[in-house]
């Protein structure tokens, strides 16, 4: 798929991998909608893309709020047209330092699930119908190795990402015959603020750069051979740590 001219929406785009994904898509000619909780934090990224002759817009939304989803989808499609590429990148870790499940408040788990699982479901539900009607569209779910490994203290985040992986498979199973692709990507350990919040003692030199991971993920989006419904690892597709 030629990225150029396509309409893309990236959540959690103010920093880290989301920022890098938005910039990579913008530089490759996509019309990009960047989504974050604060418009102010998105504007510098939008400016970077526009200064390099890209097309980008900032939209503020809380991915955990159901009432934000139609306003987000409506504003996004008004600005760039029907969405061709939807990247669910926004993530909530929960309170840090991370806690054992027995110390996790129910409300904290609910908030993590709202942002990491319900938000992607709701937004895909709004956008994927049009994709199926047009018989084209790609939905990317940014996952984590915590979705398959049971690390102590990562409980809320882990279950949300495990469910997100399966949500990606289910969209693929239901929409594969209708021109819509869905898959999840484990970006591996990256040098991001979220990683620093979760593991402040980690050696940053050993972590992958978001810009390299973003390039690999956009390559997956553009490649027709990307397995539908798959759970892919960025380290296996060219982004080395």
């Amino acid at each position, binding site marked *: 798929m030629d990225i150029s001219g396509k309409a893309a929406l990236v959540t959690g785009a103010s920093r880290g991998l989301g920022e890098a994904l938005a910039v990579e898509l913008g530089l490759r000619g996509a019309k990009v909608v960047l989504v974050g909780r604060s418009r102010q934090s998105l504007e510098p990224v939008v400016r970077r893309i526009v200064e390099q002759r890209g097309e980008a817009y900032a939209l503020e939304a809380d991915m955990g709020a159901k009432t934000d989803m139609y306003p987000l989808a409506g*504003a996004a*499609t008004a600005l760039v047209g029907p969405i061709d590429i939807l990247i669910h990148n926004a993530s909530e870790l929960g309170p840090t330092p991370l806690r054992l499940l027995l110390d996790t408040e129910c409300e904290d788990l609910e908030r993590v699930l709202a942002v990491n699982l319900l938000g992607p479901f709701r937004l895909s539900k709004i956008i994927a119908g049009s994709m199926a009607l047009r018989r084209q569209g790609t939905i990317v779910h940014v996952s984590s190795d915590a979705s398959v490994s049971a690390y102590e203290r990562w409980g809320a985040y882990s279950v949300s990402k495990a469910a997100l992986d399966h949500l990606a498979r289910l969209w693929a199973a239901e929409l594969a015959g209708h021109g819509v692709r869905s898959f999840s990507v484990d970006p591996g350990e990256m040098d991001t603020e979220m990683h620093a919040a979760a593991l402040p003692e980690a050696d940053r030199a050993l972590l992958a750069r978001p810009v390299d991971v973003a390039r690999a993920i956009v390559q997956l989006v553009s490649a027709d051979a990307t397995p539908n419904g798959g759970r892919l690892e960025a380290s296996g597709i060219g982004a080395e740590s």
Partner: protein
Amino acid sequence: MKAATAPRSALNRERLLVVDPASAAFSDFSITDLPRFLNAGDTLVLNDAATLPASLRVAEDLELRLMSRLDDGTWLALALGRGDSQEPTEARGEPPRLDAGAHLDFGHGLSARVVSVDARFWRVVRIAFEQEQSELWQALYRAARPIQYAYLDRPLSLWDVQNRYVARPWAFEVPSAGKPLSFETLFRVEARGVTLAHLTHAAGLSSTGDPLLDARLPLAERYEIDEHSVALVNQSKARGGRVLAVGTSVTRALEAAGESGVLRAASERTALLLGPNSRLHICDGLLTGLHEPGTSHYALLEAFAPRAVLDRSFQHAEREGYLQHEFGDSCLILRGALGQAPLASWAA
């Protein structure tokens, strides 16, 4: 006919009244029966417009309802006076007169200036929002809410007024013919070899509260049909397939862009009114809600079926408890639909 008083909470419960103009027969089905009336090679055309929050409250005695977005980026809006969504538009108070140049503050970071006032209908004004691009769209979604209806038992949210396959927010009221269509049904339609095509039509207001202005509805509304959907429709017709429009908005757009008999790609406005004397060039059938005689919607149905057949079918529907309006039941008007082996039918 009774109105549906709330969005349907259960999936696939809408009824389907099938009217066959060829045999002057009609019969009762469920919306899930729709696929059986379509054949391989037919095309179903849907309006993918999302519904805007088009109701803006300026003051207690002034609500503005967006009616149309013009090519220069300004908007037509209708002023309504004191009262709320529980009152029919015709019972609303008279709004204050707005003059060109007036400043309107809707709160939530949204504001506009009145550019001009319609010479004939002073409640219709052209406004220019003072925000642009993402700032405009975010503020509009914060400040406005969907148009509400007096016959509903609870306020509508944005989630209530969207079809399941929407994209750009062009519609001012929900293109409601698509509301009963679940993807379960649409995929079963597709599995029969029927093609799904789409266009975008800015379905406008259904009522203004002013009989003279209502008589001029629908206003010229913008629509867009892309080359891909045009090719699907034209291929279908060339091979003898039938084209089924989902909704009156789709019908008007298809017939406006297909007046030559061959559909063309278009991004324009149409004020095309269809009625009993109209010759349809593209559409062979229509899936629609149940409408009342005397409305422009009902007149459009007469392009598909004689008035007498429609009248008797709809009288039957009323007796049988069918529901009308935005969240009501459906009606399929398709020549030959009941011609072969209707389960039960009545000569109209």
